[in-house]
């Protein structure tokens, strides 16, 4: 540890960190554009210049390491003038695109101009004209005029994905970023470039012209599209009072922004599958309780009672072995625990199955093979992923409850109809409206992970808790709520379920019972 001074304020910091980092720790933000924690300092924007006692010239905060007794000043006249100077240079050759630029509201130049600039333009010349709609691949569009040549995008593709699709061409003020002819960006991390770009030079088609950043609310969640469980923000439009908004979720962004939180450099990013795969949250959602026998719509209590009736019928006939349950690894730990408790421990069912989790190709960075968020959680709670014995499951089964939380298909209609036909009563808990829902006698709408609280255990064994960001549509509610009601209704262990008011309560029980979750 070394002791140094920032604006005459003494602070103790780790040896070898940069002045920029040290200032952050002291709560002082030094403006910077080209610096990003994932890469070594580049030093080309010149925005982070600060005064250091004993140094003749201003020094870069991002590239200067702290020393014992160093005195740094971030608010002297010199420093303020330097910042204004850099801003003025950048704005001089920057197009007046704010009214049509997607980055408005979250743009570094805008923010810094408001904080450190507020001067009148003295630029009386012609601005450089460059290409404003360069297709660089994967729906990304590069506007070379807006580009401030921080080279974050080039460095990302050089150091992180190691694919080098972008380069800097020409020299001086004619410098521009670009791709090589038609060798466009194809890797699975291209979307990060939009977040990385400090201005609106790189934008993506998914978000372009759809809304304004200041209309969006942000909620913290975990991406459920693979077992890595990257931390994300779900950015949604809360709606206007007087007219409808076409979308609910507008984008998903990465949540990790500091090296301490990140899993080394990987943590700053999310892959394109997670970033652009959010349509499942809003598309084809099951919103009403469907019952073929009678209309239970709107009445959650009656629905649970109905399910309980069917289970009790089997109990009275002593034929509980004719009940089967299919779960899945998209369910949260809380939901899986409740399912285990109700079906395996309370009802002592043998036929509790997990289909093999969906697999996909993994890559070198984040994307895991297992495309479900909670296989690890399911394993630790005590479920196994042996192949479903079709005969065992569908022969001699009168009541089958299926929890299918994944937006992907379990099978085709022709594949699923014959086995399901063998079962008398079929109940489906799902968030989605799919064709195969018609094969079931009851379809109960549930919530996606963005709409509930709970936890997942990722492929690295990390348990991540999250809270609801959105509200479930219509009559849908989180599986854990349905299960708690069911557990109470079945009545074998009413007291336990009666205490479970929130996912945290459920988690307490999990911790009591299973060591893995006590970390």
């Amino acid at each position, binding site marked *: 540890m070394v002791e140094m001074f920032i604006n005459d304020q003494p602070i103790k910091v780790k040896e070898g960190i940069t002045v920029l980092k040290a200032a952050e720790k002291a709560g002082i933000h030094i403006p910077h554009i080209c610096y990003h924690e994932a890469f070594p300092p580049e030093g080309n924007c010149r925005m982070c210049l600060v005064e250091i006692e004993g140094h003749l010239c201003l020094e870069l905060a991002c590239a200067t390491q702290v020393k014992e007794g160093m005195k740094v000043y971030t608010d002297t006249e010199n420093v303020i003038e330097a910042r204004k100077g850099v801003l003025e240079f950048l704005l001089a050759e920057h197009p007046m695109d704010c009214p049509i630029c997607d980055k408005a509201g979250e743009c570094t130049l805008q923010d810094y101009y408001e904080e450190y600039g507020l001067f009148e333009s003295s630029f009386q010349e012609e601005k450089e004209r460059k290409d404003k709609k360069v297709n660089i691949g994967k729906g990304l569009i590069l506007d070379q005029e807006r580009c401030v040549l921080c080279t974050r995008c080039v460095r990302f593709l050089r150091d992180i994905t190691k694919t*080098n*699709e*972008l*380069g*800097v*061409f*020409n*020299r001086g003020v004619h410098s521009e970023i670009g*791709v*090589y*002819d038609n*060798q466009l960006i194809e890797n699975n991390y291209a979307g990060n470039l939009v977040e990385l770009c400090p201005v609106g030079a790189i934008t993506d088609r998914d978000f372009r012209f759809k809304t304004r950043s200041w209309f969006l609310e942000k909620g913290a969640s975990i991406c459920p599209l693979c077992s890595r469980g990257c931390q994300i923000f779900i950015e949604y439009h809360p709606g206007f009072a007087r007219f409808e908004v076409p979308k609910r979720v507008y984008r998903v962004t990465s949540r990790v922004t500091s090296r301490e939180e990140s899993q080394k450099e990987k943590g700053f990013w999310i892959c394109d599958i997670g970033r652009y795969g959010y349509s499942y949250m809003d598309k084809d959602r099951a919103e009403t309780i469907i019952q073929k026998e009678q209309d239970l719509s709107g009445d959650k209590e009656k629905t649970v009672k109905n399910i309980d009736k069917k289970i009790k019928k089997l109990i009275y006939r002593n034929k509980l072995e004719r009940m089967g349950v299919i779960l899945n690894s998209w369910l949260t730990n809380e939901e899986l625990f409740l399912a285990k408790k109700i079906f395996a421990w309370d009802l002592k069912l043998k036929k509790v199955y997990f289909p093999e989790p969906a697999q996909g190709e993994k890559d070198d960075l984040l994307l895991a093979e297992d495309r479900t968020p909670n296989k690890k959680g399911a394993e630790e709670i005590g479920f196994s992923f042996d192949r479903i014995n079709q005969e065992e499951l569908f022969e001699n089964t009168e009541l089958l409850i299926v929890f299918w939380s994944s937006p992907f298909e379990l099978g085709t209609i022709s594949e699923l109809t014959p086995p399901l036909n063998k079962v008398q009563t079929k109940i489906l808990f799902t968030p989605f409206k799919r064709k195969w829902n018609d094969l079931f006698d009851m379809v109960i709408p549930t919530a996606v992970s963005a709409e509930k609280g709970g936890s997942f255990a990722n492929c690295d064994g990390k348990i991540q808790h999250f809270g609801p960001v959105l509200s479930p549509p219509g009559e849908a509610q989180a599986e854990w709520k349905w299960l708690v009601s069911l557990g109470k209704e079945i009545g074998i262990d009413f007291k336990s379920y009666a205490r479970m008011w929130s996912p945290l309560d459920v988690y307490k029980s999990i911790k009591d019972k299973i060591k893995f979750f006590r970390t």
Partner: protein
Amino acid sequence: MSPEVTKSTQKKIKELIARYPKKQAAILPVIHLVQREKGYISDEEEKLVAELLEIKPIKVREVVTFYSMLSQKPLGKYHIQVCSNLTCSIMGAEKLIDYLSEKLGIKPGETSEDGKYTLSTVECLGACEQAPSMMVNTDYYGHLDKKKIDKILKELDE
């Protein structure tokens, strides 16, 4: 035109690459050889150099567009590069550039239709004591005036 270079150039390129611990370091000497033979560096040459040095073509283009002497467009047989920097300017370079423009029928940056001449203005050539100076391919000419230029053009024509 064949994208490949002659065997003797290939041999020279191999020798050059062997001088450096990293192949990419040979990029400028290799591009000079290729440009000498092919006249300029088009997409084909970019890919060829990239292959020879085992790097991506984008890295070649980054270099070709950075340096003034490397050209992505075909150059004339005689590339006339007139210095337009300070000393040469005050010694009358601008008038000579206009004169050359007139004589060759092209503006600075252009190549004559018969592909014989390319006229360019360049920065300091390092021949200020002979200002105004110019370079034609690899040869320097100094103490220029209209008469001298006429003489040089006549020699080039032959």
